[in-house]
């Protein structure tokens, strides 16, 4: 068992068209831990998440996943950009769940969970189908496998999206506001699946506005504001005794 953290960010910066979204963010996520990122919109939470699986390129700083630089390789003291194939293989080991589910609309629920296994990992079709059914049972949707995403509720779609990500056997799961697009009564079913996943020992980074979930499940909580980490630590102490003015302000608005 190695002791390298699953994710390590050191002074990560990112700008879009001259606007600095991340201004030197550093964080550490240990294996098997659940990390929650909270903060107002535009604070850079989603951008940080997207940098971790290289959906966005960071401009400065160091970002390591499982001990490897994301998107780059260090050889003889120089940074080499990784080629598409290597980046794809890195991404396939990191599951991502989106705010708007992004299930493939033209595929059935079962096909959504199979396609990555077969086309990216090269798993045989029958094995992939068996694994997909097992995961759909785990998220409680085994009866919906023949349905198309448009025929499901938001909560059901998000649970399929989690199953689709899990089908790749990821070492790390990223959740980008997974319950923000859901009707309030559907939030619980998605959070339950995520709690289950946390209990099973999955390393998770969750961008969320669900303070109850953060308090209950997270091992570490980070509060981002204007591209920097304002506060971090044990969620219970951070949430009940916020030190900074900004976090107090933010919490008074969301709680």
């Amino acid at each position, binding site marked *: 068992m190695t002791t390298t953290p699953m994710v390590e960010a050191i002074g990560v910066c990112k700008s879009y068209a001259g606007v600095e979204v991340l201004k030197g963010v550093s964080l550490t996520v240990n294996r098997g831990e659940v990390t929650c990122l909270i903060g107002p919109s535009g604070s850079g939470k989603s951008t940080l998440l997207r940098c971790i699986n290289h959906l966005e390129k960071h401009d400065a700083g160091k970002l390591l996943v499982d001990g490897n630089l994301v998107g780059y390789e260090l050889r003889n003291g120089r940074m080499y950009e990784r080629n598409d194939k290597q980046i794809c293989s890195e991404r396939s080991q990191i599951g991502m769940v*989106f705010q708007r589910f992004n299930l493939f609309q033209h595929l059935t629920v079962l096909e959504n969970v199979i396609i990555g296994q077969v086309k990216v990992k090269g798993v045989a079709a029958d094995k992939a189908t068996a694994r997909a059914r097992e995961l759909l049972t785990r998220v409680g949707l085994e009866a919906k496998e023949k349905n198309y995403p448009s025929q499901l509720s938001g909560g059901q779609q998000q649970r399929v999206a989690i199953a689709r990500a899990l089908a790749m056997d990821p070492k790390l799961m990223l959740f980008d506001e997974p319950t923000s697009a859901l009707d309030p009564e559907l939030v619980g079913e998605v959070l339950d699946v995520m709690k289950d996943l946390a209990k099973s020992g999955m390393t998770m980074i969750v961008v969320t506005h669900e303070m109850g979930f953060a308090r209950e499940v997270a091992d570490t909580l980070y509060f981002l504001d204007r591209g920097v980490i304002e506060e971090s630590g044990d969620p219970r102490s951070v949430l009940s005794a916020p030190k900074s003015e900004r976090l107090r302000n933010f919490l008074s608005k969301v709680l």
Partner: protein
Amino acid sequence: MATNGDDTIEVVPVRHAGRWVGSAVALLFIAMLVHTLFSKVPTGQRACHVVNGIKTCHPIVAWRFGWNVVFHYFGASEILRGLVITLELTVLSMLIGIVLGIFLAIMRLSHSRLLSGAAWSYTWFFRGTPVYVQLLFWGYFAILYPVLTIGLPFLHVTFLHLDANSVFSPFRAAMVALGLNEAAYMSEIARSGLISVDEGQIEAATSLGMTHAQTLRLVILPQAMRVIIPPTGNEVISMLKTTSLAVVVSLTELLGAAANIYGSNYQIMPLLIVASLWYLIATTILSIGQFYVERHFAKGALRTPPPTPMQRLSEDLKGIGSKFRTRRGASESGVRP
């Protein structure tokens, strides 16, 4: 308010006077059209015959639209051969158009300025010049390049010499001309389909570890097809009729075959009708085909796919049955207090 026993409202519907007048006028025009289509006119000739030494004459009349001639040539072998060439030309040039069009659309959306610029220029040129001119260009291509050579560019290494005149037969010239022209239009149709797919779909595919090519092939194109198919159906029907221009490269397709016949017997109108009827039959079959292709690619986009005409028919039949049943049921419930 008058009500039946079962609470349904009995309504006296509004009378629409304008609708009645409009219908009467339309009916009048339809009657005139049918009358003139099937009228007979004197040919100017007279038929005379002698009975018991008395000669009687009467003018000969014939269908104004020459329906007997239409009927005679409808299944003529020249016409059918022309029809086959028209259909072959339509299918092959549309295939070239669709495949090349999708490639151009992908190029157009590329991050490389050169690739997207090249695709844009292609569309600009082929859409900006008349298809008639393009047909003539490929028809007379052999004047520009009498001999086609295949080899390495700029190195004077050649593998193969071909006689351009035999390579560009009238059929192939028309196929290339119509296909390349169609690609310009198809690229815009394909591009509109590709950009209609939600960006989230691309992100989801990327985060699963799919390559650009896999994302395009497995996620974007299948969903873009839903947007691409209807205008492509339009293009196929349009192409079917545009093939008639191939007469200028001396290809005897459907209209050319009809023209050959009326060139010798001067029955111009009846033969134009023969050709038109075949065009109508072909477009009708294509429209039916389009319905089923659209339905296939609509998978998942609609919660309930639209019924096929056969399903609709059986629903209607069931509907009539249930109407009778409810009417009976209604009268029964009406008895209840």
